[in-house]
């Protein structure tokens, strides 16, 4: 189909996004699902980074808050909302790890940028 975007490893096909919000969607390709988790994490990192930077939310509370929300939201998403078998993907821990460090670094960068911009500019 000419309207579908075909991209390589890691990037998502446009059709995948229609599956993301359907709780009963069948995920045939493991990697596709893990990529969704990965990018979802990056989006959460950006959103929280902006909010935390603007509020501002400082210190360890900010970092802990991010970790909990990031892990928590994704956990609720993949275990409750979607009916997937976690064991198929190596268990809850593997799904929690997916993209976490990169999203953490991204969160830090956004948090620092917005904090500096809003409160020290």
């Amino acid at each position, binding site marked *: 189909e000419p309207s579908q975007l075909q991209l390589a490893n890691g*990037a998502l096909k446009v059709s995948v996004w229609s599956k993301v919000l359907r709780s009963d969607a069948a995920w045939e390709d493991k*990697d596709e699902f893990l990529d969704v988790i990965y990018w979802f994490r990056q989006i959460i990192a950006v959103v929280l980074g902006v909010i935390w930077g603007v509020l501002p939310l400082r210190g360890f509370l900010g970092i802990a808050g991010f970790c909990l929300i990031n892990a928590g939201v994704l956990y609720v998403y993949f275990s409750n909302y979607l009916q997937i078998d976690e064991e198929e993907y190596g268990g809850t821990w593997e799904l929690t790890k997916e993209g976490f460090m990169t999203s953490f670094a991204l969160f830090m960068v956004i948090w620092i940028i917005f904090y500096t911009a809003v409160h020290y500019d």
Partner: protein
Amino acid sequence: MSTMFADTLLIVFISVCTALLAEGITWVLVYRTDKYKRLKAEVEKQSKKLEKKKETITESAGRQQKKKIERQEEKLKNNNRDLSMVRMKSMFAIGFCFTALMGMFNSIFDGRVVAKLPFTPLSYIQGLSHRNLLGDDTTDCSFIFLYILCTMSIRQNIQKILGLAPSRAATKQPSHPMVGESTAGTH
């Protein structure tokens, strides 16, 4: 716009540029070569096959089956090692370039506070976050700390967006012990 925030944005920009530069160098020296393309396809195919086989195998599977898997694992390990060797060329080139670049940036940003941290880093992190900065304010952020954070987040995302990151199955298999991936790692 204050000078400090201008520095903050500049460093993010530098990080994006260096990540693209690193991928560009790797593309010229590695990605576009036939050898790499062939090896990468082999490794991905083999690791996916191996993973599927490992999933379906049971405890009571015959010795023959287990031997077959061992042989496949060995073959995959060798291919992975060859793949790492091919990437080594670009890693040396990148290492060289970046040493020069970092030297230059470090002297440009020496003593400059490039951002304010919304937290007080742990004491051993301060060695990095407060590097070459005067004063006692530990929420001052140095060039190198921000640059490292940016690189960690941007490099891997760029690789994923450009479709250059190796597949998960391929990275799960052990490769040559001495050759690690680039700073940000690839997934």
